[in-house]
């Protein structure tokens, strides 16, 4: 079992992916999802708050970083945790999230990095509908930020051929018939 943060750190440390922070120009802050930070610490004795920040810093110029919370362990829930995003209590969920909206506003950041599907949906689709979030523009998953910052080098001809052969074998096994393609 590997967490997304550990995997991304490994890719960066080992030089398996290259990042170009110069493509990102907006100020950014980091949200601490309860499951990755506080509850991870309580359950496993380790948390991802620092790694979330470190990976974010690999993607932006450090001058653009804005801290939301000095103590990730005591950061606030987005308001949609524990399945609340899917529950019928929208009014309560959005009222709950005011403290998160206020935190984001106070950072002055334009982008919020949220390494959790649920937090991302609440911060991106929920909170801006009802709360003033200051300079806020957009929410990105951690892996979305990394993907946007990637320098992608195309594979070699040999690698591509090998992948195509594996793909074709897989499609045949699974009965997937793609529309005719011209190569």
């Amino acid at each position, binding site marked *: 079992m590997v967490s997304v943060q550990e995997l991304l750190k490994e890719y960066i440390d080992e030089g398996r992916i290259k990042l170009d922070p110069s493509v990102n120009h907006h100020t950014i802050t980091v949200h601490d999802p309860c499951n990755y930070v506080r509850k991870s610490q309580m359950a496993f004795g380790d948390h991802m708050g620092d790694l979330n920040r470190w990976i974010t810093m690999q993607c932006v110029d450090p001058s653009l970083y804005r801290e939301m919370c000095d103590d990730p362990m005591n950061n606030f829930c987005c308001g949609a945790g524990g399945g609340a995003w899917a529950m019928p209590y929208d009014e309560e969920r959005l009222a709950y999230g005011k403290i998160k909206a206020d935190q984001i506003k106070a950072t002055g950041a334009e982008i919020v990095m949220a390494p959790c*599907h649920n937090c991302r949906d609440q911060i991106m689709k929920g909170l801006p509908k009802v709360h003033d979030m200051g300079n806020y523009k957009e929410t990105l998953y951690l892996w*979305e930020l990394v993907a946007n910052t990637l320098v992608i080098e195309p594979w070699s001809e040999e690698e591509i051929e090998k992948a195509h052969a594996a793909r074709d074998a897989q499609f045949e096994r699974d009965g997937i018939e793609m529309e005719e393609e011209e190569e």
Partner: protein
Amino acid sequence: MAEEAKPMEIHIDRKNRKIGGIAPELADRCFTCGTCSGGCPATGLVPMEGAEGVTWDARKAIRAIVFGMEQEVVDSKWPWVCTLCGRCEYACPMGIKLMRSFRAARTLRERDKVPGPIHKGTMMNLERGNNLGIPKEDFLYLLADLGKELEEECCPGFYVPVDKEGANLIVTINSKEPFGEPDDMKFWWKIFYAAKEDWTVSSVNWEGVNWGLFSGDDPAWKEQVRRIIENARRLKVKTILYPE
């Protein structure tokens, strides 16, 4: 003249407490200091039925459990508006398991009274392998189509390896993505492409969202985790990536 208020007799049956069953004596340690409710964004959001102007909060819910009013907690909206974020439990100076108690209150809710789709989704998952009931064939075609799109956009040679035996990494998927936001799957795919990762996704039971955890359904929660591990074993993959 108003009738003189008489104190209500409270019957406390500590031995048979269901929520306290997690830690029978812990709730009783509460000092009523309010650290939990003072630092909780859900404080004041849920009106207490039959008590005008009074709202639920973490401290009151724990006190209700101490006083044997478990059923009132179970029947209230409190355990569901609480997001189980754990801040109260982390901060409690007496080590009371607040978050676990409120999740236990969810477990005690009758299944057909679990709010929203999380119970139905859990049942759907047990039956069809994902919360939204996406059929296997649709899923496989979607991965093939999107993979081809990504190959054309930026990543020559890219495809989504399904059920690849002996891969280095197996990935779960959040069903909301194939269902409603399919392009969002490409973020990870680009990263795997750039890193030349040897990865795979299972054609069955690939759901990464565990609603049994949230609905308080322990057997379903465990079953879903078991399936994810089973997929890894079946495909002889050493590492599971769980991007939730």
